[in-house]
């Protein structure tokens, strides 16, 4: 019998070595290093996200100047060593304004994703775990939310709630809750119907214990991956709404608003709207790249 056991493990040499709990630190570090080195895009993306987060919490570190102070003599200057992103029509340094604008934009995005995650996650969990008519009712409701394009639903909420960054965030969050609800529901159903959850039930585990110990941990991962992906979409949605002029009133900087301000100078000074616009694009690209990595590359490379 022992001999045959050895035969069994020997036939699968790769599986025996993969033991996340038992792996020495050095091996893990080396593997993480190799993983990063073969993916320069991912490293760059992480760097962009770190920069954005620093801008949001400590903008002074990256841009010590005052974002509201303009030097009229320097107005509409092209990007240069003195003004990396150029200056706007009041002579304000665009780089400083973009860095300081990160706080509001990011705040709105985080709130939006949190609202969507909690709201959608709860709906999905309830629908998927309880099933039957609860599932039917909740999912019909989600279908309705999906039928109204998110931007228009956000606009309706803004009409009711009024302007402002917080209202934008709430509006975007509610409008994107439906996709979380769908993913959470299907994941919960998949796990709930899986044999190992039934096996847990058949050894006498109570339902709420199996919800906490089996269903939630196994269903959470795809939802968290979606949260990262949704973060990118929320950056886009928030900046669209602030581009349309529903965010903070000027002169406070906000990414979408900065682009809108630059529209009038598009013909002569391309940088005024392009630089903030590219900042938004870079942030979204970086977040999407990271979510793709979370979604499987890391797991598959092991």
């Amino acid at each position: 019998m022992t001999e045959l056991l050895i035969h069994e493990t020997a036939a699968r040499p790769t599986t025996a070595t993969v033991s996340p709990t038992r792996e020495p630190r050095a091996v893990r570090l080396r593997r993480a290093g190799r993983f990063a080195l073969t993916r320069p895009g991912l490293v760059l993306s992480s760097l962009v996200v770190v920069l954005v987060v620093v801008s949001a919490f400590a903008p002074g570190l990256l841009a010590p100047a005052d974002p509201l102070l303009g030097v009229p003599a320097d107005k509409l200057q092209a990007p240069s060593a003195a003004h990396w992103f150029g200056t706007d029509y009041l002579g304000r340094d665009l780089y400083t304004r973009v860095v300081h604008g990160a706080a509001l934009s990011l705040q709105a995005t985080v709130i939006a994703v949190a609202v969507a995650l909690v709201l959608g996650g709860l709906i999905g969990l309830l629908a998927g775990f309880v099933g039957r008519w609860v599932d039917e009712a909740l999912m019909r409701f989600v279908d309705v939310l999906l039928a109204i394009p998110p931007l228009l639903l956000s606009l309706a909420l803004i009409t009711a709630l009024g302007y402002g960054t917080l209202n934008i965030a709430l509006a975007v969050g509610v409008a994107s809750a439906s996709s979380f609800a769908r993913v959470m529901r299907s994941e919960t159903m998949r796990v709930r119907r899986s044999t190992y959850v039934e096996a847990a039930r058949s050894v006498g585990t109570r339902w709420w214990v199996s919800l906490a110990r089996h269903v939630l941990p196994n269903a959470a991962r795809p939802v968290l991956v979606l949260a990262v992906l949704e973060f990118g979409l929320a950056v886009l949605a928030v900046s669209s709404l602030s581009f349309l002029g529903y965010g903070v009133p000027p002169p406070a900087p906000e990414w979408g608003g900065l682009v809108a301000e630059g529209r009038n100078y598009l013909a002569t000074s391309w940088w005024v709207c392009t630089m903030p616009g590219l900042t938004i694009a870079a942030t979204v690209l970086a977040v999407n790249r990271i979510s793709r990595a979370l979604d499987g590359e890391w797991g598959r490379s092991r």
Partner: protein
Amino acid sequence: MSLLEVTGLRVEYRTAAGPLHALDGVDVRVEPGEVVAVVGESGSGKSTLAHAIIGLLPANGRVTAGSVLLGGEETTGLSEKALRLVRGRRAGLVPQDPTVSLNPVQRVGVQVGEALRVHGLADRRSAAVRAVELLERAGLPDPAVRARQYPHELSGGMRQRVLIAIAIAAEPALIIADEPTSALDATVQRRILDHLEGLVRGTGTGMLLVTHDLGVAADRADRLVVMSGGRVVETGRTADVLAGPRERYTRDLVSAAPGLHQVVRENPHRDVDTHAEPLVEVRDLVKEFRLPGGGTLRAVDGVSFDIAPGETLGLVGESGSGKSTTARLVLRMDDPTSGEVRFDGTDITGLRGKAWRELRRRAQLVYQNPYASLDPRFSVEEVVAEPLRAFKVGDARARRARAAELVDRVALPASVLDRRPVELSGGQRQRIAIARALALSPDLVVCDEPVSALDVSVQAQVLELLTELQADAGLTYLFISHDLAVVRSIAHRVGVMAQGRLVELAPTAQLFDAPQQDYTRELLAAIAGRRSRETV
């Protein structure tokens, strides 16, 4: 000249963990009119061999050395364009799983006709006519009607016949059949293999039959090629290999193949006191399911039986016969429509809440698929200790000690306790599932196809373990399987189920030697390996 001559073939797969040598110097020969079976367990490289011959390796695989002569011409290193002239025309492939091997959005007649049209053997109109003829040759009833249907309207067996029609369409000199019937029920499997063999033998075509089932190979092949770990371990005339296997691996395989022997292992625990009060009494059990389009399906239809303490009752039947549903009803994992199940004298049919949970202490279930029945995030220790946790037995230390003891009882080293299920092989996982079932020292263990997802040699070990545990702990088993040979090696009594009814129930020896019902006889006749046993 040989029809097929493979010499020193090496195939390598590029994987994240580095190159994997799937074939490591393989030699195989097929003469015209000959059936050669390639036998091996999963991962032995037998399917890779089948695909490599016609250049159908997946994108990450490539031939690194050796040659494949098909009708005297080399096929390795041919361009995709040149290979197209070989595929279908010179060698036809009957693929593995008929349920997914046909294009779901195309009529089957078109798919058969395509095999002719790509080789310029028919135009659109004549292809349609020829397709019907080919379907008829493949043994499909009402071929003209079937040709106009889509794959999902056909049963698995019919779809396999369509695939056979595709393979023989361009009249290739060689048929490569890659596990052609493993996904089908035994009786269907036998009819299809009979037909395929007839087609091949009647026309002087050669066939390379790839299978994991030594019984199937023994019944059909002139010569056997036994593969393991990408190498040919042994080759020779079928009768010679079976009668006197030279290699240890072949010997293990032959002795583990359930169908090849009159009696695989005498059940060591033969004596059961059948006069004792039965542990389980099932009376007139009925379970109906509502169908989506209205109407009901009687999955279980008036089934009655007893199981004595310490006895193993085997339930066999083909898919859809209601055997798994019966098992779930016995465990009270489902509500019966009518009828009664008594466990140790108490009626458990309407059991709920606390009493239902108490039943879980005494009756346990081992699932078919050990890959799905263990939470991938849990460590083995957590899996095995879960029942103890659920019933708050002992503290964490005591539970760990008990888990170690249980793992030891299923003959696994204590080091697996910290592993996760993904790191274990199928056989090891099933042992873990058995250990979990034993954690609360139950009286009854229901095994639902516990070995059907495992390789044959591993199957034998798990069956042996179950028998040992029964002897040690006086367990009672309800053992569900589609595989008569497996049931024969473990059960005291065997019940045969078909369409929800219990057709026949008899002591094992009696059922196998003197079956009373026609259906049982048909099932017995379909056991692979039986034919070779009679002739060897």
